[in-house]
């Protein structure tokens, strides 16, 4: 069986599954239960400076988006960093780490953007025996209004500065958690790297309003008639997170920067995908908030089985495996020709592919009187929309045309050579080069 042991920037854990800094890691009670359930590590919910703790709202903190059967697809939260005294958290962190020495204990931090504030808190954290710290530069609401969280994460210079302070004042590894609420994720990652960060973790939550109460005309969740944007997470944000992880992993400047992947990871497959795109480990929150700690059993069994099937013996061997295949659009092979094929035995004749293709795509599906749906190869551009709307998995597939065959749509022979936009005759800049 595959060995799931993880060593992320020198922090060891029995598996690469950590709980992200969030409500599930807010206190000793939760974290002990998470460790008993089998989680490899936790990032303790963000601590603030000494003194009176912050206060949370007492109305609804979460908003949600649901799919079929009310399956939670996206979660929006208005919760702030821990609202418990610093001393209590530190005492609990120390106790838990003492009892679970094999698990990763990372402490998330967010203090004012002043050198003294960071210098003051770091020794206290170090004293707990924690394995590392994560700098919360991502929290998009509340704390950002006070010049912390995303307010720091959106300014690369601040990221670099604070990271440098932390590296200066502690021996612990420093992970910088990035906000996705920026235009180019590589800039803050580069800043963290310049500041000496050992790793980045991403993504934090995305600014969001989940819905609007149409009776009182206020965003939801609504607190006494008003709503504020929150941070969006859960399965819905996974594609955004995957891209941002890949952007950092395949950028020459940050290619060597370790990444802890976060964003909608719900099952082993999601975890494997993040790792394939360059994440050294992953952090989970919404999935446990939806289903409880027990999902880690499936994460472990699924990843192990897949690794065994792939003949892979350690998680390091899968990290970044998909990075070389992640390219720019201009490098995609325009000579690759595929056509959609509908398996008539699997087809249940719902006609959704037809509606999608006929109404919105390329009019490349024919419908007979008796509801037999077939692809018109002479029209099909293999856009994949039929496959994406088909309710039956595996019913519609895209099949590559063989070299030498003639594409009935273009009348051109399929060639073996790679041909992309950079060399395409229609590309004006390509013409310039000639």
């Amino acid at each position, binding site marked *: 069986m595959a060995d799931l042991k993880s060593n992320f920037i020198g922090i060891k854990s029995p598996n690469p599954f950590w709980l992200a800094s969030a409500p599930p890691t807010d206190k000793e009670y939760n974290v002990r239960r998470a460790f008993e359930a089998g989680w490899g590590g936790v990032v303790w919910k963000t601590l603030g400076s000494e003194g009176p703790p912050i206060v949370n709202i007492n109305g609804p903190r979460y908003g949600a988006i649901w799919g*079929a059967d009310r399956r939670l697809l996206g979660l929006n939260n208005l919760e702030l960093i821990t609202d418990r005294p610093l001393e209590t958290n530190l005492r609990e962190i120390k106790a838990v780490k003492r009892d679970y020495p094999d698990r990763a204990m990372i402490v998330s931090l967010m203090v004012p953007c002043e050198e003294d504030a960071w210098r003051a808190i770091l020794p206290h954290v170090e004293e707990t025996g924690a394995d590392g710290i994560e700098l919360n530069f991502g929290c998009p609401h509340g704390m950002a209004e006070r010049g912390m969280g995303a307010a720091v994460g959106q300014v690369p210079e601040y990221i670099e500065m604070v990271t440098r302070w932390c590296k200066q004042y502690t021996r612990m590894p420093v992970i910088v958690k990035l906000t996705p609420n920026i235009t180019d994720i590589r800039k803050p990652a580069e800043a963290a790297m310049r500041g000496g960060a050992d790793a980045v973790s991403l993504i934090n939550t995305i600014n969001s309003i989940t819905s609007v109460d149409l009776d009182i005309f206020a965003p939801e969740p609504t607190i006494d008639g008003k709503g504020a944007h929150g941070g969006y997470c859960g399965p819905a944000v996974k594609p955004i997170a995957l891209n941002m992880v890949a952007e950092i992993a395949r950028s020459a400047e940050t290619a060597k920067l370790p990444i802890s992947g976060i964003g909608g990871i719900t099952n082993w497959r999601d975890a494997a995908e993040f790792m394939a795109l360059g994440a050294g480990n992953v952090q989970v929150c919404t999935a446990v908030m939806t289903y409880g700690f027990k999902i880690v059993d499936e994460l472990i069994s699924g990843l192990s089985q897949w690794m065994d099937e792939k003949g892979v013996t350690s998680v390091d061997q899968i990290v970044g495996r998909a990075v070389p295949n992640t390219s720019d659009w201009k490098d995609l092979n325009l000579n690759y020709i595929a056509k959609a094929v509908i398996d008539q035995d699997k087809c*249940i*004749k719902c*006609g*959704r592919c*037809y509606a999608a293709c006929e109404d919105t795509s390329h009019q490349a599906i024919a*419908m007979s009187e008796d509801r037999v749906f077939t692809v018109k190869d002479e029209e099909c551009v293999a856009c994949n929309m039929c496959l994406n709307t088909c309710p*039956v998995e595996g019913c519609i597939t895209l099949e590559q045309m063989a070299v030498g065959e003639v594409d009935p749509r273009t009348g051109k022979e399929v060639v073996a050579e790679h041909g992309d936009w950079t060399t395409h005759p229609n590309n004006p800049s390509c013409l310039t080069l000639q």
Partner: protein
Amino acid sequence: MTHSSATNGIVANRVSPQQLADNFSDLHGPLDDHEAQVAADRCYFCYDAPCTTACPTEIDIPLFIRQITTGTPEAAAKTIFSQNILGGMCARVCPTETLCEEVCVRETAEGKPVRIGELQRYATDKLVVKGEHPFTRAASTGKTVAVLGAGPAGLSCAHRLAMLGHGVTVYDTRPKAGGLNEYGIASYKSTDNFAQAEVEWLLSIGGITMQCGASAELADLQARHDAVFLGIGLGGVNSLRAEGEDKDNVTDAVSFIADLRQADDLSKLPIGRRVVVIGGGMTAVDAAVQAKLLGAQEVSMVYRRGKENMSASEFEQELATSKGVHLIYNAAPLRVTGNGSVAGVEFGYTQTVDGKLEQTGETFSIAADQVFKAIGQTLLNVPEGLMIEGGKIAVSDTGATSVKGVWAGGDCASGGDDLTVTAVAEGRDAALDIHASLSR
């Protein structure tokens, strides 16, 4: 006096009042909001959906289900009613397993269709129970139409005509409107006096005058109105053509079903200890199941052909067996025995040879103190001058009879199955044709 299932003869009060209430409660209780959401979530919103095509009234089923999922069941109800004004009753009595649900792509995919009938009930109940009527009448056309028969066809026709601005008078010989919805449907399919509530709701469009308990002559109606629609149903019942059929306690299943529906107190309704129902349609099932529910000890339903030929659906057959009805196939009645009153029925086994039903020569007898005949209904009291085709009033696709100015629809008219939903479609389409004719 209290009796049990084992009490001899035909007696009332075989089961406790509580048990009776349970037995005759809704076959399918209404879906609550959550159940409706879960059920509606399963609809794939098919293109040119097979369910809609399979519905005789062509309700836009994917649309109404989508309207349920988006929290607007009232809009869903309007989608249904715009095609089928008796969508509430149809949701209860349609054999969906042989119509919309049979062709649902999820039946194809998983053997479990979307629960279309129950979702239709969920949506339509929202409006009917609230008493909200979603349609308004067009300006009066000054034309009047007579509708003969207040059953599904007649009511559907009347409503559409009223909506289009015509004045409608509906005549029915029975004291209550509704036709088979009121008199011919198993009680557990339409509880809480729904048929009357639905009629009242339907009439709230206005412009319809009801003349129940009144008979009318076609010639007179033709003279007094601009058009006439006949929705008179099938008034006659086929006979067994078996010896001894005239013995006491051999009656029509339709009368039994009507008596049941009209009974104020089911505990006063007598039922035999041993009941035999002869026939293979929905009427036979409704009679057999209800005999069992009233407390009969043994109920046999005997059909002269095989299971596959039975017009009662698979679902109806399973319902009957689940209630304890003994289904016997391939047996035809030879004679009814007994001295004055029925004591038993002798059957001969049948087989089909070269497409013809024959006796095999083997016989058997079933003891019975009550026999219900459910072997089909026939057209009675057809006004003179109308062309008849296959025992029914001959009509065009839009319900026009051979006589100018007279339309017909529902069970009395040719074409289509004898189903409530088919009658509704025919009544509606005839109304549209009448409207077109009157607008010329």
